[in-house]
């Protein structure tokens, strides 16, 4: 009937509940194409870097929020609310939490606290995370079945951060290697859409998957 209520009739709620207990969270077909499977496994650590990584991360998580999963945005005060809403994130299930990135200990505690109740956590990563803290934190978020997406602080290229290779146990590393904008000219037009070129490396698979994601 095309009316909003049909989205959340009790049947639909049941579906959502069942999804939550299942092992995977929904992604849009475009993101599925990019990461090579049509769902996000629970208990995953994902990192996104490069220019456009904020948008990429939001696009990856949007379908799950629409299916009833809650998203905690940790230590990322600059994330544009309107942009993530345009990318499909359901703002009714978004909560922002502060954390001090200078204190990896405090940050890690809050990541764990978020993971114990939210299906999705999007966080800026401290530039250095001691190995011991990293190990115990990632173990606990995995036990909670949460998908954690880590960003670097500015959304631009990482220089010398441990995100690139040091952190053992990151399941999916996404790197935006280029983006092409449509719509903007020399003194005319406006940003209309962009195509992100993304490289995705999965932990247990050899090689790097190259793909693109059109955001508009």
């Amino acid at each position, binding site marked *: 009937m095309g009316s909003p209520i049909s989205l959340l009739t009790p049947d639909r709620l049941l579906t959502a509940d069942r999804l939550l207990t299942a092992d995977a969270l929904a992604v849009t077909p475009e993101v599925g194409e990019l990461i090579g499977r049509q769902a996000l496994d629970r208990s995953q650590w994902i990192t996104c870097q490069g*220019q*456009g990584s904020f948008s990429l991360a939001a696009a990856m998580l949007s379908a799950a929020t629409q299916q009833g999963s809650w998203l905690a945005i940790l230590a990322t005060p600059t994330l544009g609310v309107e942009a993530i809403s345009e990318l499909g994130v359901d703002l009714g299930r978004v909560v922002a939490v502060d954390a001090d990135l200078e204190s990896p200990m405090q940050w890690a505690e809050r990541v764990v*606290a978020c993971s114990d*109740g*939210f299906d999705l956590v999007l966080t800026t990563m401290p530039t250095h995370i001691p190995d011991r803290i990293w190990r115990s934190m990632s173990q606990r978020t995995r036990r909670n079945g949460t998908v954690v997406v880590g960003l670097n602080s500015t959304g631009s290229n990482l220089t010398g951060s441990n995100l690139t290779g040091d952190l053992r146990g990151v399941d999916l590393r996404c790197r935006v290697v280029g983006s092409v*904008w449509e719509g903007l000219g020399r003194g005319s037009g406006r*940003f209309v859409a962009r195509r992100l070129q993304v490289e995705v490396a999965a932990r247990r698979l050899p090689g790097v998957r190259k793909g693109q994601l059109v955001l508009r």
Partner: protein
Amino acid sequence: MAAVHVSAQTPAAVLRARRGIARSPAAAEVGVRVGQSQREAQRHCPELEIHEDDPARTARNFEPVIRAVIDLAPRCEISAPGWLCLPARGPARYFGGEEAVAERLRDLVADLTGWPVGVGIADGRFASTVAARDAVRSGPVVVPAQTSGEYLADRSLQWLERVGEIPAEMARLFEQLGLRTCGDLAAMSPGDLLGRFGPVGARAHHLAAGRDLRPVAATDPPGSWEYQRALSEPVPHLDAVVFLAKQIADQMWSELSTRGRVCTRIEIAIETEHGERNERSWYHGAGFRAAQILERVRWQLEGWASTAEMTAGVVLIRLAATEVSADSGVQDRFWGGRSRADDDALRAITRLVGMAGVDAVRVPRWQGGRLPDERYRWVPALSTGSDSGPDSGPQSGSQSRFDVGPALWPGALPAPSPAVVLTEPRAVTVHDANGDPVTVTGRGEISGAPAVVIEKGRSVEVPCWAGPWPLEQRWWDPQSVRRVARFQMLLSDGSAVLAVVEHQRWWIIALYG
């Protein structure tokens, strides 16, 4: 009417979503208020008895009151358990004046329940409800005819949200625009409000001016929206009856909404196998959604089942929309239920607040504006103020915080919006191809095409750009008027930025990150 069994002398409060929605007179005396958090209320009164909100319990306890009032005035409508409205004219004529009716109603309910009840008489539902809230402490309030506007004039706009079913965002938006009281709002031209804010604005004006006797939009003739469901087997379980009513509630709602209509008053009739019949009128100024209709069915059933009158299973449910008006689009979009994920999230939010403090855990709320940093505001997730209506705490997954809509802000840049909104704008200088600084005149003309952006001594070329899009903010207020020109620029290092010029200085305020 907090209908738990506590005596009027015990300080007690009823909480929903960790905020007070009702309190006993004894609690009111020591400063416990509706809208406070549990913690805050307990600070005022450590021995406070806390009861979780249970609409079914309230419905059961309210049933005798409804019955008593219907005996007196058959045309009474129920807004929610604890809140009913009735046309005063008939009973007033019968009992000899409005004061007499008001006192009679108060005594009637006090005899039945032992609780003070507020009775207010005024022009329209909104003004009379405000009067009734006043009357809880002062005794019946009768506002003379045609003076409801004056009676409301000094009230804060929060009343519109609390009893007028105007979205909280809208009430806050009015406040941001400098309108503080119902009187301020009533003084505006209704045409302007309609043009600027749509039907919700017009409705708010209508309420604030004390003129909501009739619904804003024209009403359809009664009788055209009736749905019933006869059950072949009598159904004894309330849940099952509600489930069966869902089908006709959905049908009614979808047929109304495809015609752009919404039902504001509904008559629900239920019959049992033994021929017993229960009929009630329910009112919801913002219009009933299917879920809200079902909620009323449930309340009504709970109330009826608590009496001895209902002796058999239900065989017939009938819904009739008795007041239908144009859909003004202010309703919550969501089904009232909560999933396990919502409960888990609420639990985590509570714990995070304990770890990091109230202000460190926030939810986004639409506030409107034309620059990226203005359009949404983060508000504490467990805030204590009346930040959202009683039905939509942050935990409900409700969309109402975002429903006012971007369309009200012409001049804002269209999507895509920047994914990184800088908390500290970055100062830059911009030069044209000749190396001269680019300036923007008051009329929005630029001195040359931007060619290079220089930030902290590092220069980057500008292959593509667009602008300026001038913007004059708050032109009606000379204190805070702000003139900026916006540019979108693609830089040769691959970043896409939103820059503004203000007082001939350039700032990067957001990145399309």
